[in-house]
């Protein structure tokens, strides 16, 4: 299946009502030869998704689009038109890292024989370019409350998105090493942003639906998982262990593990913030 067709199929089959994403995905401007039967994501991927395919290059481009998105976000946040008092030192650090990550991934895309595509348009109100569908207010870069809400979504989702990519690169240690190490930097970013929002550094259960409950729930879907793998085919429900049977231990059990995104959620994220 052609990768772009694959993305469209996911969009139409799994998340109706977000059609602007189709245009977004076409702007990738490349036809991917999707031949490898790779499992996308981990146990959280739905069976239908797990059977679909994408090349490693497709997944690199996905990671690159995430980094571009974050780089653009912090670039606008540090521009002359932004007004985010008290955050400038942090924003410089964040912009610096995302810029380095994007550059690194662009290098991998080229080294893999791929072409770095044109960047999409960005919509940091998360409406996919449609103001009537915006999740966030339009004061993203002038109101720290709005800004940090968007930042938390991007960073927490970024951590989960990387986890969905790792298995594709398990035989390429150079790329896997970089992706893993970028991903823990994203987790540091996420934890700090959460702290600035007076949230715990870690995600507890479904995080109450995130910064905008009802709209940002997908960012935390599946984070309430209590079953972790013990072998390739078996799992352990940690809340069945004597030490963690108490209902009060449920939240800590979910906090002790960050879950991977299903690839549909990566697409949902990109569909909201780009067009």
């Amino acid at each position, binding site marked *: 299946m052609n990768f772009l067709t694959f993305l469209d199929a996911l969009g139409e089959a799994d998340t109706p009502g977000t059609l602007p994403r189709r245009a977004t995905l076409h702007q990738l401007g490349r036809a991917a030869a999707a031949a490898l039967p790779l*499992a996308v994501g*981990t*146990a959280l991927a739905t069976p239908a998704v797990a059977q679909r395919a994408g090349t490693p290059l497709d997944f690199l481009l996905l990671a690159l689009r995430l980094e571009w998105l974050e780089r653009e976000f912090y670039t606008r946040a540090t521009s002359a038109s932004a007004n985010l008092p008290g955050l400038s*030192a*942090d924003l410089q*650090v*964040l912009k*610096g*890292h*995302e*810029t*380095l*990550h994007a550059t*690194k991934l662009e290098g991998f895309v080229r080294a893999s024989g791929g072409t770095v595509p044109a960047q999409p348009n960005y919509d940091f109100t998360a409406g996919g370019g449609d103001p009537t569908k915006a999740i966030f207010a339009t004061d993203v870069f002038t109101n720290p409350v709005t800004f940090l809400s968007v930042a938390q979504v991007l960073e927490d989702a970024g*951590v989960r998105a*990387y*986890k969905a990519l*790792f*298995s594709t690169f*398990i035989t390429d*240690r*150079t790329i*896997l*090493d*970089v992706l*893993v*190490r*970028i*991903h*823990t*930097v*994203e*987790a*540091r*970013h*996420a*934890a*700090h942003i959460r*702290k600035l929002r007076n949230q*715990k*550094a*870690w995600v507890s259960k479904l995080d109450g639906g995130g910064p905008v409950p009802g709209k940002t729930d997908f960012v935390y879907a599946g984070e309430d998982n209590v079953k*972790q*793998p*013990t*072998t*390739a085919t*078996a799992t*352990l429900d*940690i809340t069945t*262990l004597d*030490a*963690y049977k108490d209902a009060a*231990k449920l939240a*800590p059990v979910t*906090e*002790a*593990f*960050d879950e*991977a995104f299903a690839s549909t959620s990566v697409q949902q994220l990109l569909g909201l913030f780009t067009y």
Partner: protein
Amino acid sequence: MPNASFSSVEPARRRFLRSAGTAVAASLVLAACGDDNTPTPVPTVLSLGSGDMGLLSYFLRLKQVQAAFYEKVTTAPPASLPAAELDLLKEILLHKQIQRDYLANLLSQNSQNGLLTGVEISFSSLSLTTRAEVLEAARKFEDLGVAAMNGAGKYFSSTTFLAVASRLASVEARHATAVRDLIQPSSFAASDVVDAEGLGVSSTPTAVVTELNKYVSPLPFSAASLPNS
């Protein structure tokens, strides 16, 4: 072979090792090599093993040491540690215990050794009498854990266990950030933990185990069978 750790140890030695309660010991010193009356072999290290199970065993030992650290500092916290910060350390402790017990279960499900009862963990070499000392020690253990996981990810050969490692690694980074934010605001991703390429600093198993061994007795852990490049 029920236990991969014993693949190179013959039955008599296995029995010895099990009775010694140090069942992962695989590196033996023979006091009189070449002599038919070989003395009882004496284990000198606790090998972490090799492959994905070795990597997860390595993570388990890290979690054991970290959990022991938080148990100590939350059981007898310094008076200068504010209640809210003590609560945060208790939350981190619980995460470490959960991760430790899960990894022990995973390893035992794969015929590996889980928790080791013969291992003593002591922090008597650390001064932990002030808020600053406790938080600085916590920061070091968290940054060590992140560096360990940053360094180990690329060595996994099973996607299942790579996913396990990644689920733990980002939580470790969240812990590190929570502690760093208490010590120095905005030090969450400073240059001592994120390198000039924007990548998380990584450490080899041997480097990390050398640090852990400062607190472990009577036998040190050995990462000699794990990749160390």
